[in-house]
């Protein structure tokens, strides 16, 4: 036989799945929430998203090509996800240059300084978001009125900020004016960062990702359950000072964080047991920050803190071995 045969070790077949496909499935899962944000905040939402995505892709390309001198890997789709998530985490009226800075922090500091895809410890979009929150606190917490305004929902404070402020001033929760109802929160008729407002559409995206095996239920469910239980205890003790658990779950980007950001594969633990511990940690830290911390919302910080714990969880928590210990 004249032709040479390929010789390689087994296995000789490969599943049809690829990292790129996984990334694009995450992007598809975010589309309903993105459409809703345009519906709610107008074309500004699209502007912010496009700038963020373009900037993240561009920064990844430029940094990889000119600073790291490696073949740019922008086609894998992960930079697009970071861009969309960054946009989802900022108000829709954010000036373009702040978005650029956020994208640079996300890609440069959050991702590429660790070596790029797969090597980063912290969720890049959250690094970008927190960087902006600390650098531009005013712009990052000035929420635009809702275009789809339902009567008096033109409030520019997020529901959680409103509660935090009022409770500090001694106003019981029942008396706070302008709080959206749970129905509005579920659909997304409230102020906030552009991707965080509609709990239902985020859940829809999550179900799609679980169905497509992009993520498993462990992280989102353990976060939501922890928040439910933990905030429920406080609410049960004093409903005047602490808002009900359903409110917690549907506000402050909790759904966005639990479904799309805590589940980031790169920065979350590698086996179900560790993932559940990670999720419980995020839930506890989130509610602690919301109730006792300086910020009205806490999930970004909670996820970043638990990201830092992830290597430790991977080290100590092992999957169930076949044949016991």
């Amino acid at each position, binding site marked *: 036989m004249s032709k040479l045969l390929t*010789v*390689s070790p087994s296995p*000789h*077949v490969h599943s049809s799945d690829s990292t790129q496909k996984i990334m694009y499935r995450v992007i598809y899962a975010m589309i309903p929430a993105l459409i809703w944000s345009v519906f709610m905040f107008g074309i500004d939402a699209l502007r912010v998203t496009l700038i963020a995505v373009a900037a993240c892709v561009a920064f990844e390309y430029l940094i990889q090509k000119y600073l790291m001198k490696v073949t740019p890997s922008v086609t894998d789709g992960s930079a697009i996800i970071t861009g969309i998530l960054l946009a989802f985490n900022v108000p829709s009226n954010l000036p373009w240059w702040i978005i650029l800075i956020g994208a640079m922090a996300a890609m440069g500091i959050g991702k590429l300084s660790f070596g*790029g895809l797969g090597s980063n410890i912290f969720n890049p979009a959250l690094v970008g978001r927190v960087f902006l929150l600390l650098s531009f606190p005013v712009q990052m917490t000035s929420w635009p009125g809702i275009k789809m305004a339902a009567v008096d929902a033109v409030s520019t404070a997020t529901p959680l900020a409103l509660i935090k402020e009022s409770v500090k001033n001694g106003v019981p929760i029942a008396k706070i004016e302008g709080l959206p109802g749970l129905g509005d929160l579920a659909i997304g008729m409230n102020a906030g960062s552009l991707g965080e407002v509609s709990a239902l559409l985020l859940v829809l995206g999550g179900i799609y990702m679980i169905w497509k095996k992009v993520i498993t239920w462990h992280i989102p469910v353990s976060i939501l359950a922890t928040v439910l239980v933990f905030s429920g205890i406080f609410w049960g003790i004093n409903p005047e000072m602490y808002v009900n658990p359903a409110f917690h779950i549907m506000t402050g980007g909790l759904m966005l964080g639990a479904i799309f950001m805590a589940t980031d*594969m790169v920065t979350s633990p*590698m086996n179900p047991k560790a993932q559940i511990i990670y999720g419980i940690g995020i839930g506890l830290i989130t509610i602690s920050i919301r109730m006792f911390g300086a910020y009205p919302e806490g999930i970004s910080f909670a996820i970043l803190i638990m990201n830092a714990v992830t290597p430790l969880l991977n080290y100590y928590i092992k999957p169930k071995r*076949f044949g*016991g210990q």
Partner: protein
Amino acid sequence: MLKTFKIGGVHPPENKLSKDRKIEVLSIPSAVFIPVAQHIGAPSTPVVKKGDKVKVGQVIAQSSSFVSTNIHSSVSGTVKKVDFSADSSGYPKQGIFIDVEGDEWMEDIDRSETLVKDISVDGAEIVKKIQECGIVGLGGATFPTHVKLVPPKGMKAEVLLINGVECEPYLTSDHRLMLEKADEILVGIQLLMKAMNVDKAVIGIENNKPDAIQLLSEKCKTVAGVSVVALKVQYPQGGEKQLINAVTGHEVPSGALPIAVGAVVSNVGTAFAVYEAIQKNKPLFERVVTVTGKGVSKPSNFLVRVGTATSELVEAAGGLPENTGKIISGGPMMGRAISSLDIPVTKGTSGILLMKEEESKREEIIACIRCSRCVSVCPMGLEPYLLMTLGEKQIYDRAESERVMDCIECGSCSYTCPSNRPLLDYIRFGKGKVGQIIRSRKK
């Protein structure tokens, strides 16, 4: 719900192209090369020399220790030479070259098709005969069968599990054998049960072979202690530990043999070989081999004499497709890519898979995104991403404590990795090194 093993697993496309093709007897080649190491354990010692006349079924290489077995001539003719040539591992291995003359069998072999049901020998004799007849596990592992049947001191076998799973994609040799030789297999199972002194045997068959499940279930009704269990299609269910887990629910402890949970596993092909050895006095020198692949014009199941060159099988299945890029001895998940068509069929060859050029190359490796799919599919509950890194970075002590030696090399991790990372390559490398370290520690 159908039974299956509890941890991990994947389900690659089954591609059982040859499942409806009856077993055909492949014509005897003009020459064979029979390696003396076709089994796990010590290679056998050649007992023939150049110029010797041999008959079909004659011992040509003798077992050299307990974990070893005899090799028999698969043809009649003249020994051309005893020399080295490549087997499916790619390395030159000692073996016996025989030029075929006619087809003269040893006189004591019963060549009739009559089914012999009555078992007239006792357990010890069965074990002895199995050893003499060179029977090894025909599922692919080729572990000498007689060794399995003699449990270590203090251990007792309780159940015989018969592996009719054939979880490898493409392969159909066991499937066909179950359909065409069901009665013989059942007698073989009874012989094994007698040898092991157990009164229970379970045949595990995956649910993608409903005809085999039905046929054997029907026939089992008249055989005491033997039953069939249908299993959910899930790779690597044919792995010994996975099959035990699927059928009995037990987990073989890390580092232990199946006998630790009272089980002994044998393949349906092995059961058939045992039948032939005991009832027909026929040593193991031929087996069923599937020849298949998407480009193969006639995917087939052949009864092949050991030592036949791969090229003969490929010819019989319609010739080598133009765009063949890779030839695999075995299935696509655990088989070995061979470098030439001269490589002979041995006792462990369950199939020859021809892959097209475009199926032969691996895809570009990209960064691990820590999606943990490798962890979730690992049937041994290991962390392949970690073991790969430990192998790559040569951190062997940690690899050992992360139980790299438990890896059964099923390839589910590499199969599933969305970044096309060669997980198993590095794990195998690390496993080899750790194995060396463990052995040197024992000395």
